[in-house]
């Protein structure tokens, strides 16, 4: 194990973070104009685009469910996202992460409101630096909200793990590969429910518990960033006064159109 720093007492992580410090995160919503909803996330050196389409008609039709909508996720890493170049064909790992994302997001979406429909989530990893599944879930949750799909809560994901014998939050690529364990957790913060819990590596029962609670701490920090990203699209300034509520103006469509018709004649 590589122990950085000259003094043995002075322990620090590869990138100089504290044990409970996240990588810098930036989320933007509404970045793809042709998608119904979209988001872009930078989490450390991860760069991930996410687009949401739907609810739309399920194709092939036999996969549609008569009572609920089907959430479909596609996780894909661009060939240039890692060094050395990666084959663009979907691998076992891509399939697993697609499935894991689906189950993490599924419980937050009101699927029963759109029977026979499909909601498609496409995630494209442009640059990977460890913890892409968590970053993808964060981006996908923002994109789903941006698409106007009714959700019970946002879904936040963050990993914690064991590196160099210590528990650390939000593992980077190096820590992920050299570390002893990795525990990605997805979480619905307002409902206080965990939607994804995986573990890779060896941890004692005590360490597992600590790891999960460490990851949940990270999730809560990311949640605030997600909220900011969603609100940023509408500007921070608050409206001065109440003059028109859109709901009051719902009916008179036809009237307006008839008036136009009158003008034409």
């Amino acid at each position: 194990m590589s122990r950085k720093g000259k003094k043995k007492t002075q322990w620090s992580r590869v990138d100089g973070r504290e044990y409970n410090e996240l990588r810098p995160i930036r989320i933007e919503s509404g970045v793809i104009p042709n998608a119904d909803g979209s988001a872009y996330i930078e989490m450390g050196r991860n760069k991930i685009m996410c687009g949401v389409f739907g609810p739309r008609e399920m194709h092939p039709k036999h996969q549609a469910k008569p009572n609920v909508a089907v959430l479909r996720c596609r996780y894909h890493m661009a060939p240039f996202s890692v060094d050395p170049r990666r084959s663009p064909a979907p691998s076992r790992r891509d399939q697993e992460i697609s499935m894991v994302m689906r189950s993490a997001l599924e419980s937050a979406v009101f699927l029963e409101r759109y029977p026979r429909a499909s909601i498609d989530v496409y995630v494209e990893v442009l640059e990977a630096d460890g913890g892409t599944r968590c970053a993808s879930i964060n981006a996908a949750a923002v994109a789903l909200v941006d698409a106007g799909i009714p959700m019970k809560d946002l879904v936040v994901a963050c990993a914690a793990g064991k590196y160099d014998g210590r528990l650390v939050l939000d593992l980077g690529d190096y820590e992920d590969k050299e570390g002893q364990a990795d525990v990605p957790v997805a979480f619905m913060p307002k409902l206080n429910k965990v939607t994804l819990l995986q573990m890779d590596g060896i941890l004692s029962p005590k360490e597992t518990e600590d790891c999960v609670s460490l990851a949940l701490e990270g999730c809560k920090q990311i949640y605030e960033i997600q909220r900011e990203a969603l609100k940023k699209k509408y500007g921070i300034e608050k409206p001065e006064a109440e003059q028109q509520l859109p709901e009051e103006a719902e009916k008179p469509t036809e009237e307006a159109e008839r008036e136009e018709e009158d003008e034409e004649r």
Partner: protein
Amino acid sequence: MDAKFETRDVVVPGDVLYEGRVRTGENTYRNEGNVYATRVGLVSYGKDDVSVIALEGGFNPLVGDVVIGEVIDIELGQWLIDIGTQTEALLNIPDAVDQPYRTEFVMTRVLDIGDTVIAKIVDLDRKRTPILSILGPGLGRVSEGFIVRITPSKIPRLIGKKGSMINMILKETGCRVSIGQNGRVLISGRTREQEEMVVKVIHRIENEAHTSGLTNRIQEYLRKLKEERK
């Protein structure tokens, strides 16, 4: 046991809007005694209910909505029309021509594939497929103009209170504008400049739909655009 936000605050899904007993309005749900939001939008506390005015959202077809769509297919006795819903809307012959059926009737003479129509939703069948009609004033095939798409949830804002916004735009620009509830707006004017003005205004309304005092600001904006042109 009370409101957690102020009216017109921007909320995101999962925000607790109210703790305690209250009616849940649009875009909200109840869980363990609390009322939560399901969409991004502006929260609105009514007398005895809580609702969220959605800022993002697809088109939810309702009977009576006027929509703008494109004919994508012709089947035996019906046209399939894309109006941006999950399933294509249906337009049956009796809803398209006001005369008894004759064997020599040719469907493509009324509407052909690729035509744009303004239609009204008259029914939703049990799979929630919209059934359309083009019989009525202002409905039918569109012969000129072009379509601008905006988020369907912002259409009420484009119309304004009792049509105040759209009437103002019509008066100021002199264009003909038809609004479909499915987020498609048909514009046709006498000159290209007029049309461009309307498009600019529509995009501005879409971007600022969540702010108040919009009609007045748009009016000023329109006047400024007009002056620039002179």
